[in-house]
Each structure stands twice: as C-alpha cells, then as structure tokens.
C-alpha cells in the first residue's frame, strides 16, 4: 500500500492559487469520501495556508492531481508537491506539530488536522498515520515550549498582563479608543477571561458600538480617571496628539497593580506612569520587542520539536514497512498449516491420539515459525525487509501458490 500526498501550500503557491482549492471541513470531507470510493483511503486537509490530499492506492497520485486540476486549474496542479510514504508521513507530522506553519508552533493546525481526519475517509493506513500525527503534534507541544509564547502585539499584551495578575478571570479592563488594534487587544484579554468593563472614546457612536459587543459601559474621555481607578488593565489606542493617561490619573490603587497597554502612536500613556509603584506601561515598541523575542524562542524550540517529530515519523515508517511482509508471513503460516493438516489427516489414529498429535504438531509449528516471523518483521523495518520476504517466498515456494 503506497501512501501519497499531493498538495499546495503557502510555501510554493500564492494566495490567488490557494484560494481556488480552499475547502471548508464539510467540502473537504465530501471530496475525501468521493476519492476514497475510487482509490481506497483518502483524507483532505484544507486550511488557509494549504490544501493537501492524503491518499492510499496505486492510482492515488493521479486521482489527487486530477482533483486539484479540476478544482483550481492546471496552474494549481503545476505548483503542487507530491510526496510518498515516509516523506509524506514526515510532512504530515511536521504540519500537525505546527513546524510547517507560517508561525512555528501555532496551535490551530492541530485541530484542523483532527477535523480533516474525522470528516475524511481513512482506512487502516491513514487511520494509523493521522493518529500518530496527532500524537506527534501533541508531544511536540507538551515537550517543548514552541506553542506557548505570543505571536502578536495583542496576545503579547495579554500574556504580559498574566505575568502580573496570573489568571485574568474577573480582571477589569478599560479600553481607551475604539480602534481596531485596541479591539484586538481587548479581545485577546477577554479570551483569557478578563472583563471589558468600560470603553472610553471621543466618538460616542464607535465607543458605544465596541462597548456593546463586550457588555461594557461607554464612557466619555473626561470620566477616564474614575474608570482607571477601578481597572486592572488599561488598553489605549487613541489618535490623540498628547497623553491621555498621566500619573495623576492613576490614583486610589491601595497596592493593586495596574497594567497599561499603550498601542497608540503618538503614545497615549505618559511613560512616567511606569515609575509609579505597581504600574507597568508597555508601548507598541516594547510589545513588538517581546513578540520578536518570542518568535526567536519558537524558532529555537522548533529544532527540538523537529527531533520529536522525526522520531515519531520513524516509528510510523517501521510500522508501514512491516505491512510489506505481512502477506508473506500469512502465506508461510497458511502453507505450513496446510501441510500439517494434510499429513495429520493421513495418519490412522484414535480420537484421543489425534487430539494429542494435533496439539503437539500445532505447538511445534508455532515454535518453528515464531523466530522467522519476528525476524522478518524486524527486517521489514530496515531497508532489506523486501529481500527477506522475497527469499522466504522463493524458499518455501509461496509464489507458485498465488
């Protein structure tokens, strides 16, 4: 059984081509089932960065390329990559671990691989392949820190707030300005359990709109100091020419820390606020430096994750190789059993004697074939596995039986 992978990804194809073959989970599942009816096994993985067809069978490559051509035209087929067996498996393992992603270690891909597997049409080989790939993806993430650090300014702000407060559940967030960047930061904080309690904006309409989405109060900029007094985290992103938050706005803290994320240029928060006890101000440059450092850390961790993934892929290769000798082992055992049964039937024995001889000859057969079976499976994992299988077929005349 030959494993084929045919696909395109952001590495070789621009978005204009990728979007032609981008499929939702349902469409990807339907396509996989359609192909599986013709070739045996198929799983189709489609994300914004890649569309890949994993298929098993003699005509798998041809059918997968045809499908991409039909969906996206000849240009897509021309940009596609084709991998087989170990290379295909290693590729999927790397994809599941996030090592082939634009941002190394991103977490979404593991879920997408799982969904593709669940809606696809896997058989024995793809079943094992995807199970192993999901395990490798999880292992890479748990044994390294590749997926832990933030990759955007918004998520870096939220991660830094966690360095101050720990869990953000129930922490009060005040957003100053209703811009897109500020909203992203607010969303990132809310995703970690924080409560957006107030949105202060010069324009009532936009402020109310953002506040409404989070169930927060829309307040005027004049009332900001009161909101800051009860806040744990303040996100600022106005286009005001001067400082919106000054040291005298930070009052009544009573030992409570205050984390300020200043995403505006020019800056909204007076940098001297950072000098106040328990106040931490991060502007856009500080956050970008944190993101850059995190990405560098992810790249370093990626090296360790590669080793984990390679080990898992090697295990899969050994398993797949053992499949090549399974028919030979089965034939050998069937041949031996046939000889034993035939010879036993010739013997003139009482029922009791027949049972005894049957039991003894079965045991002899099993013991005799045990070591060759184990050795052949071991050899299958190495490069000379097929030679062993051929030799066994030749020596025992298994070919003539076919």
């Amino acid at each position, binding site marked *: 059984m030959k494993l084929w992978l045919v696909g395109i990804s952001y590495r070789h194809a621009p978005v204009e081509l990728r979007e032609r073959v981008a499929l939702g989970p349902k469409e990807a599942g339907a396509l996989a089932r359609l192909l599986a009816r013709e070739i045996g096994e198929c799983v189709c993985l489609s994300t914004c960065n890649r569309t890949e067809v994993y298929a098993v069978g003699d005509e798998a490559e041809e059918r997968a390329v045809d499908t991409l051509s039909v969906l996206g035209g000849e240009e897509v087929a021309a940009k596609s990559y084709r991998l087989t067996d170990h290379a295909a498996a290693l590729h999927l393992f790397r994809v599941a671990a996030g090592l082939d992603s634009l941002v190394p270690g991103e977490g979404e891909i593991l879920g997408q691989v799982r969904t593709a597997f669940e809606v696809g049409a896997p058989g024995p080989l793809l079943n094992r392949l995807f199970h192993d790939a999901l395990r490798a993806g999880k292992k890479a993430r748990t044994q390294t*820190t590749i997926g832990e650090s933030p990759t955007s300014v918004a998520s870096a702000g939220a991660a830094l707030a966690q*360095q*101050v407060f*720990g869990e953000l559940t129930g922490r009060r967030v005040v957003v100053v300005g209703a811009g897109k960047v500020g909203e992203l930061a607010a969303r990132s904080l809310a995703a970690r359990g924080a409560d957006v309690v107030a949105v202060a904006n010069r324009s009532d309409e936009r402020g109310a709109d953002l506040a409404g989405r989070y169930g927060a109060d829309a307040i005027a900029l004049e009332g900001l100091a009161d909101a800051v007094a009860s806040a744990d985290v303040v996100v600022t992103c106005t286009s005001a020419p001067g400082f919106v938050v000054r040291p005298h706005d930070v009052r009544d803290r009573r030992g409570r*820390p205050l984390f300020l994320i200043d995403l505006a240029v020019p800056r909204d928060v007076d940098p001297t606020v950072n000098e106040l006890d328990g106040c*931490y101000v991060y502007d856009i440059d500080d956050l970008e430096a944190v993101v850059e*450092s*995190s990405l560098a*850390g992810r790249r370093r961790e990626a090296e360790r994750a590669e080793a984990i993934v390679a080990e898992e892929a090697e295990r899969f290769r050994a398993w797949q190789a053992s499949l090549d000798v399974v028919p030979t082992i089965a034939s050998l055992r069937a041949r031996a059993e046939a000889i034993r049964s035939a010879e036993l039937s010739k013997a003139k024995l009482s029922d009791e004697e027949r049972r005894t001889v049957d039991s003894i000859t079965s045991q002899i057969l099993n013991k005799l074939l045990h070591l060759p079976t184990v050795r052949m499976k071991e050899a299958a994992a190495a490069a000379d596995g097929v030679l062993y299988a051929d030799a066994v077929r030749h020596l025992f005349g298994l070919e003539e039986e076919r």
Partner: protein
Amino acid sequence: MAELLFWPALLAYGEAAVAYFGETRRPGLPGRLATWGVRIGWLVQTALLAAQAARAEGFPWATWAGSLNLFVWLVVTAYLIWGCRARFRLLGLVVAPVAAILFVVARLGGGTDLGAKSHYSSAFLVLHVGLVLAAFAGFTLAAALAAVYLFQERRLKRHDAAILRVPAPALQTLDSLAGKTIAISLPALTLGMLVGLVRLEAEGGGVDALMAVTVATWVAYGSYVALRYAQGWRGRRTAYLALAAFALVIVVRLALPATHFA
C-alpha cells in the same frame, strides 16, 4: 553505612541546582531534570534523617549542624509542596543551590553523622527546635519568593523583551504566596519561642543575644503581617520587608553555634 546517604542526596540537590540554571537558558528538559533532582534528593535526605533518628540517643538534631541538616530538609519539603509546578521552577534556582550549600555545611559540622547524643529532653527539643526550624524554613521560602518577585518586577519595569521565555509565577501569585507563607510560619515561631521561654522559666538562665535577635525577628515578621493584612501593603514594599526580616533569620542561624550550642 547510612552516613553515605549524604552523597546521593547532595548529588541530587547539586544536579537540581545546575539544571535549574540550565532551565533559565533553555526551558523544558532541564526544568524537569531539576524537579526530579529535588525529589530524589529529598527522598534520600529523608532516609538519612530516619536513619539518624533510629540510631540517636535523644533528639538527633540537637547540634547546630544537625539542626541545619533538619532545616535544609524542611526548606526542601516546603518547596516541594508547590515548587514542582512548571511556573515555579524559577524559585528552584534560589532554593536548590542554597539547600546544596547548607547541606554541605551541615556535613562539615557533623550534622549528617549517625549516633548523636543529646543532653536535652527530646520532647522539649522536638517542640522548640522543630517549631522554630519549621518557621525559619517558611521564612526562607518567603524570602525566596520575595527575591523572585523583585527579580520579575524589575524585568517587567525594564520591559525585558525575553520576559515570556522563561515561565515564572505571576507577581500577584508570588506576593500572595509569600504573605501566606509568612502568615503560617509566624505562629510556629511564636509557639517555638513560647516553649523556649517556658523552659527558661523552669530551669533558670538568662536571656542571651540570640534570644533578643529572635524576638526582633518575630517583631519584624509580626510587622509584615500587620502591615500586609491591616494596612493593605502589597508588592515591592512587602517583598523588601520580607527580605529585611529574613536577614534577621540569617543572623539567628549564624549566631546559633556561638550561643545556644556553645
């Protein structure tokens, strides 16, 4: 033969200290190795203490060095309660080297030997030494928490770009844990001191300098608890206060051989 347990315990604590340092450079495997080092070291040291208790006549840690041995075990025990969690590994960077060094000092002073003889009644020593040492172990951990707090706070204030690379507890968690540790340790110190005073009253004897410093230590930690829970002190101020009070604990520990065990 049981004395030889000192070496594997020291080896494990030493390995943990080195691995914790490695964790700051490359988080992951070194951290796990460090955690196992502390666990194994603690188990072996527990076996050593059990052997000492079995062979001793009276309380086995009545000497200065013996009490240091017990003190190290108490500190590591307190650390193991929550220190094995990934986020608290940074704390091990403080605890493991200190444990290893003090363990060596205890060994040099004969505190890890077997067959110790004590001139004091066991019940008195178990209560007095046990409670005071348990309190001091708690204060040591609180000082380590305060030190990590100040380290992390400084990194946040200075906008250290690599701050997220090494997992560390949140500032509020460190602050809260230090406060709770001191709040739990202070009653133990109070009880330990009371037991000592009762014995002083019963058997006579004067107040020495060590006792005076111990009372000063109690006042310092009492102030910490009062300021924290009554006045709402938090963060950097309480961290500095915990470290200042711990300086008195060090004085008491250093003064022990010159006074109580003279």
